[in-house]
């Protein structure tokens, strides 16, 4: 019999896990071995490495290292970055293996209890009955074969075969976080009366997928908190940098990567679009010098992996500033009413000041760092400083910073 707190091993967002974190020392004062585990967990390949014993110490180490990993990656990498994907994939792999292992050891009941915190679940009778509905035998066999084909499995023993026989059903609507993130497809589910019929393998996949999606969302919220505050503690930054350095070059990133490169104005948030269109007297300085300058530079350069930023750490060609970013800012300034630089020519130098080049109109890479590279203000600050710029759409509800809006859209994951 596993202790109740063991739930945290499968579900780091459970109330048991939260309690462990609450009763532990602050995350930024944890011992080195837990910090090491926070990084090392991304390199786990064998099942043995992923498993956790039932002692309180082991479970506590596991939970705290998970949270340290999230804090670390959020302190140096933006949401939807390769690093976040790396962490989310590793978490999914780990949870999937653990739930598989528990099933194999006959601890199905514990697993189902944990799964039921996320999904409404019922069991399919041995004769294929789902409530008052009889699933045809032929369909049961076909669903088994579909899953076998998906896993590329041919012959196997009876015990393994049982993992491929439909045995559970969950409400399809509970899978919506997976549908939203494209990790499940409705047309690939076998749904009867609102219940999606699943094999144990499907159930493990979906449960691990849900934890993985929660992990991404959690990292995203941490990122916004660090970004809007004083930044992350040095311990987290160190862990984040160690995680970044682990990122394998061959990682599959097509679906997710935010690459530096051409700006996509169609993905800009409403406030930035307003700035681009030019604004009236009163909000011109804030719109152009503060918001647009910081937004375009961060969106174009997408810095990550460093705590203190200067543009020359990320680009080695000043033309990105002078030929790509600055003309967009200056054009927007010209569209203001009255044009910003007409009566305030010094604001041109102020733009470069906000980019970190000091007060100049001829920036050089060597000057980078003379002043601070200003971050993109958070939505709540924009609402206070220039409320007329803020006209939130549906996506704005999910973010607290305009830059996150852009990354979210760029990753093609904005939903509505």
């Amino acid at each position, binding site marked *: 019999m596993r202790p109740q707190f063991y739930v945290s091993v499968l579900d780091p967002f459970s109330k048991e896990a939260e309690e462990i974190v609450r009763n532990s020392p602050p995350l930024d004062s944890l011992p080195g071995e837990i910090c090491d585990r926070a990084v090392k967990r991304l390199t786990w390949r064998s099942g043995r490495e992923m498993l956790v014993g039932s002692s309180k110490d082991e479970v506590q180490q596991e939970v705290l290292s998970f949270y340290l990993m999230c804090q670390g990656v959020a302190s140096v990498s933006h949401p939807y970055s390769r690093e976040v994907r790396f962490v989310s994939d590793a978490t999914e792999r780990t949870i999937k293996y653990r739930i598989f292992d528990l099933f194999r050891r006959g601890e199905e009941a514990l697993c189902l209890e944990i799964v039921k915190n996320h999904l409404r679940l019922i069991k399919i009778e041995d004769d294929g009955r789902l409530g008052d509905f009889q699933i045809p035998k032929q369909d049961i066999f076909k669903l088994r074969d579909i899953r076998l084909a998906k896993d590329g499995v041919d012959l196997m023993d009876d015990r393994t075969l049982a993992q491929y026989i439909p045995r559970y059903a969950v409400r399809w609507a509970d899978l919506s976080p997976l*549908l939203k993130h494209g990790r499940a497809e*409705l047309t690939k589910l076998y749904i009867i009366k*609102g219940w999606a019929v699943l094999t144990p393998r499907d159930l493990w996949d979906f449960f691990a997928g849900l934890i993985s999606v929660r992990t991404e969302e959690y990292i995203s919220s941490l990122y916004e908190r660090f970004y809007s505050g004083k930044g992350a503690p040095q311990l987290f930054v160190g862990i984040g940098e160690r995680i970044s350095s682990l990122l394998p070059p061959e990682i599959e990133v097509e679906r997710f990567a935010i690459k530096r490169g051409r700006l996509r104005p169609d993905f800009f948030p409403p406030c930035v679009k307003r700035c681009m269109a030019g604004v009236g007297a009163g909000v011109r300085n804030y719109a152009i010098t503060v918001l647009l300058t910081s937004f375009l530079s961060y969106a174009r350069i997408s810095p990550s992996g460093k705590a203190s930023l200067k543009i020359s750490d990320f680009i080695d060609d000043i033309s990105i500033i002078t030929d790509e970013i600055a003309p967009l800012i200056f054009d927007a300034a010209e569209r203001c009413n009255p044009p910003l630089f007409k009566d305030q020519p010094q604001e041109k130098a102020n733009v470069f000041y906000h980019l970190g080049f000091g007060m100049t109109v001829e920036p050089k890479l060597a000057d980078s760092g003379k002043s601070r590279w200003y971050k993109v203000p958070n939505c709540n600050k924009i609402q206070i400083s220039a409320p007329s710029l803020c006209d939130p759409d549906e996506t704005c509800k999910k973010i607290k910073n305009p830059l996150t809006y852009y990354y979210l859209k760029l990753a093609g994951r904005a*939903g509505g």
Partner: protein
Amino acid sequence: MILIVLREATPEERKIFYCEEWSKKDLPDFILHTLSLREFGFDLDGSGPSHRYNQFLTVEQLADFLRSKAPYGAYSSVALYEHPSLRKGWLKSELVFDVDAKDLPLKRCKCRAGEICEICIDDARGVVAQFVETLRSDLGLREVNTVYSGRGFHIRVTDDAVMKLEGAERGQLVEYITGSVIPTDITLAFGYSRIFRERAARALDRIDEKKIEEAGLRRALAQKLVAEKEKVVAMMRSGKIGEVERIEGMGPKSFRIFLEMLAKINSELTDGKVTIDTKRILRLPSSLHSGVSRKCVLVHDIDRFSPDDAIPKFLR
């Protein structure tokens, strides 16, 4: 074919409708119970629903507005908001499917663009009946409302399970409901596989040689499929897909083209843009569609619904 004569209502007829015929009792419960959380939009003169951002705290306020303005068109949001008059504070949105009689693929009648006849309406009704059946029986949803909009139907689902869904999930629901994705295994007796086959059978029943050829199948095969249409439709419905695959001239490649063609036709059964837009405004049930002089009404029994039920008194 009986062409349905649709003419524009005059301002006087609109006034008569809202002052003498319209009743708050005709507002469906799903609107009435959430009235103050919805944004209302109006087309006051036939130029489009540009009078937006309206909120009514009581049904009496709405009634007063309708009677005094007698709008050309009245609309309410599918979304519920904390601040409807600002369109801010989104809480949730109905899941909506728009089945427009004039835009259905593979018409059985000779209606030109923009025209509708009884056959068009009957076809739309058939599609709606299939969609509603899928929403209820397959997806287990209960609060499925059907509204006749004047030229077609709106299916408006208000189950909590779907109202919080965002665009991506709603997009997946469009694919599922319409059958616009080829299933992994097309022979399963139930689930999405059956839904796809039913929609595909409907398409096959109406398809002609030209359309099949346009999809890329050879003329001889197109002729055979049309000549043996009844048999092919029955095979499709019963899941005997192997027999369809064995039709003379149908190789694996042409079978794939055949299925892709059917999936494409299925995808045109509804306007997916309406479903994924969680801030859409839709014609208000109980209001007058002045462009065609028809009432927008809640449909209680889709099988017994007649478009005549939607004719306003001023036309009778």
